[in-house]
């Protein structure tokens, strides 16, 4: 059908965009463009940073699109069920405990704590939402997410309020999200989670299309709505937790990229999910470039850039295209 062919064209365009972003991301930096002299910088600083930006952007966009699908709400992002709050709390605990004390640990506890914090928060949300609300509505789940997020931020505020200025600054920097210290080690650390989570989510794109007619009708079309929702939420959460554990809380990508893709290519998740991966990766690579250059040698936090660039772009899209889910 023609709609399918158009989907391939968009996917190809998004892939070309990603390729251009990768080239640009590798070429541009405070040390100048590509040359034999700064090969070391390119291989050990810029390339892992570009790779990690691509992975983080792709994962947050894919997870955001999937969350929007299972909750049938265009305004949710992958942090909806408390993943951000949990990760933030985990990171805060480690930083407050003292980074000096953990410097010689075999495993760096900061990403681990952020990862586990995110998973734990979403698990608590899911158990509370399922226990206190009707299984059929996702509203109870969303409300439980709000409660868990408030709880984690309360504990976080309590810990921070008893901490030194240095700790508060470190936590704040982490929360804003950054790829300053990106290394091949980080890439290797998160890639397995992202690959598995991405594969599971992509395999559910047809189910997300069925869910577009609502839980009840999807059920009468033979879809095990609860199983699909828990599987998609679990996969999206694990992927999100993995990337935020190394990048911090990069805002806006998970909501703006799928939304933009949807407005341009239509709402079918068979197209939205794969195209969001490519566009999300490209977006974060590009957003990371001004961060290195603007206040050189200081870094502008990536989360600030994504929101600063993404928000106006999003507003233009909202104005020119009608939003559909």
């Amino acid at each position, binding site marked *: *059908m*023609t*709609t399918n062919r158009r989907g391939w064209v968009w996917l190809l365009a998004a892939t070309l965009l990603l390729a251009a972003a990768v080239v640009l991301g590798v070429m541009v930096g405070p040390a100048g463009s590509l040359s034999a002299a700064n090969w070391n910088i390119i291989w050990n600083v810029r390339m892992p940073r570009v790779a990690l930006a691509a992975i983080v952007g792709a994962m947050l966009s894919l997870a955001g699109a999937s969350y929007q699908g299972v909750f049938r709400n265009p305004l949710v992002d992958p942090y909806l069920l408390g993943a951000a709050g949990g990760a933030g709390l985990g990171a805060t605990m480690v930083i407050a405990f003292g980074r000096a004390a953990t410097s010689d640990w075999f495993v760096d506890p900061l990403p681990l704590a952020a990862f586990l914090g995110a998973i734990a928060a979403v698990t608590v949300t899911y158990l509370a939402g399922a226990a206190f609300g009707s299984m059929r509505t996702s509203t109870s789940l969303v409300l439980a997410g709000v409660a868990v997020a408030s709880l984690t931020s309360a504990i976080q505020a309590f810990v921070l309020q008893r901490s030194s200025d240095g700790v508060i600054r470190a936590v704040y920097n982490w929360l804003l999200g950054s790829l300053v210290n990106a290394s091949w080690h980080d890439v290797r650390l998160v890639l397995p989670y992202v690959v598995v989570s991405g594969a599971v989510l992509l*395999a559910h794109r*047809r189910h997300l*299309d*069925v869910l*577009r*007619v*609502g839980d*009840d*009708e999807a*059920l*009468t*079309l*033979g*879809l*095990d709505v609860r199983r699909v929702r828990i599987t998609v939420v679990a996969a999206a959460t694990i992927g999100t937790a993995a990337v935020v554990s190394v990048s911090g809380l990069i805002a806006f990508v998970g909501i703006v990229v799928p939304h933009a893709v949807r407005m341009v290519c*239509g*709402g*079918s998740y068979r197209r939205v999910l794969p195209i969001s991966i490519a566009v999300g990766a490209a977006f974060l690579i590009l957003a990371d470039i001004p961060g290195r250059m603007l206040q050189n040698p200081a870094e502008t936090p990536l989360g600030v850039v994504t929101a600063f660039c993404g928000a106006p772009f999003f507003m233009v899209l909202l104005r020119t295209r*009608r939003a*559909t*889910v």
Partner: protein
Amino acid sequence: MSELLFGDLSVSYDGRVAVHPLTLAVPSGGWLCLIGPNGAGKSSVLRSACGLVAHGGSVTVAGVDTATMSTRRRSRAIAFVPQVPVLPADMTVYEYVLLGRSPFISYFGVASASDRAAAAEVLGELDLADFAQRRLETLSGGERQRIVLARAIAQGSPVLLLDEPTSALDIGHQQQALELVDRMRRERGLTVVSAMHDLTLAGLYADRLALLHEGGLVAQGSPAEVLRAEILSEFYGVSVRVHYEDDGTAIVIPNRRTRV
């Protein structure tokens, strides 16, 4: 071969009884219409049959209890058209009708050539082929009802449940939609159960009527047996007269209380 049987079916919400145990049989290829005032339990009966609300008693299709069926298996036996279907604005008619094939697609599979052919066939049968690439938001009320019906037909289930299929339509499109259901029933041997408010239309198309009142089954039979002024007055609390045409069609006319 696709007889639908409600055996002591009951529904309650948080302890409040919505449907008292009722037993109803719809023969294969038959059309039963549930009538009754708002809140009588018509929708609850339909929704329990397709697994949307928990119920007591049993619902069996061709002798198989739906409680023993998986969600997928049940959706192959029973198709449901809700009162207010959700129509994603930018989905095309073809994509929407293809959703009806979901019960036949394996968990990680995609729509096969035969699924696409089945969807295209239904679009053709319902004279919707020209609509295939139209977006749902561009359709009129009558067109929407037809494509929702097309999706349910594409599901290929022997039992079709319709919750007030004509409530949002003008008289011409009401007739068109019900004629379509009737044609599909005859051509595909579907067993149909509908909930309807228009008593005259209900009597015109269904071969049996079941009158529900406050969750209980109070009358059932042929339209001529159920559509009687004294029965309707008692359970709807209205004053009506029923006029019979020569061909036996019952026309229900409300009496105006006071004439000035």
